[in-house]
């Protein structure tokens, strides 16, 4: 896969995400559009009031997968820069858990890339959230990432 532009941003953080700063960092004079995605903590899950969420990650692999998504974005879409930040730890209702910003010369590519980025992140990046309710806590239903079914068979010995 092609190397990522050095001014892309992929990070896991434990503090509130500064969305304005990230959007500024992907913005450049040659661009004409930035599309951002702000994912934040909902106050209920399946009609049960949520108290807060706790996120954990397999951090080294999560960062590697986020960078892989970035590389795919640059391959598939005519975009300029990507910022992709996920927060870990305890998050309160309304706090941003994931933020993605994509800049591009034209809006269509930025929209498409941003949508692809969040959809792929939710399916493939090893991050988990535990939902806390008045009467207990559960790990959120998630998606099983696609994994190879079998290792390639070794060539038979001649």
């Amino acid at each position: 896969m092609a190397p990522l532009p050095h001014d892309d941003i992929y990070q896991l953080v434990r503090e509130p995400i500064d969305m304005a700063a990230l959007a500024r960092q992907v913005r450049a004079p040659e661009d004409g559009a930035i599309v951002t995605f702000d994912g934040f903590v909902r106050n209920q899950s399946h009609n049960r009031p949520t108290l807060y969420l706790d996120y954990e990650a397999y951090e080294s692999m999560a960062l590697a997968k986020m960078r892989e998504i970035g590389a795919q974005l640059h391959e598939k879409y005519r975009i300029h820069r990507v910022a992709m930040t996920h927060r870990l730890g305890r998050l309160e209702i309304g706090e941003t858990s994931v933020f993605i910003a994509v800049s591009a010369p034209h809006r269509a590519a930025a929209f498409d890339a941003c949508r692809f980025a969040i959809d792929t992140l939710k399916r493939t990046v090893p991050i988990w959230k535990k939902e806390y309710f008045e009467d207990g806590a559960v790990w959120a239903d998630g998606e099983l990432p696609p994994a190879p079914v079998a290792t390639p068979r070794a060539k038979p010995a001649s």
Partner: protein
Amino acid sequence: MTPVSQTIRVTVLFFGRLKELTGHAEDSLDFADAATIEQLFALYAVRHPELAKYRSSVVASRNQEFAAWDTPLRSGDEVAFLPPVSGG
């Protein structure tokens, strides 16, 4: 392939509900050479019988890449068992 059997050491990571179920996030294990990820999981399922029922809803990784269950392990590998992901 040399037929000599030897012991290898792998690091094993558990996340989410699997971490709670096994009681540890990280373990280090000496194991027979040529063993697979599937056999490694089975070994933990003997220690923690509840693990077995999660087998179909777990994916494995080897050295931070998603890996097939029949992947052979090498000394120094980092294997992780990952429940369905729920980031975002």
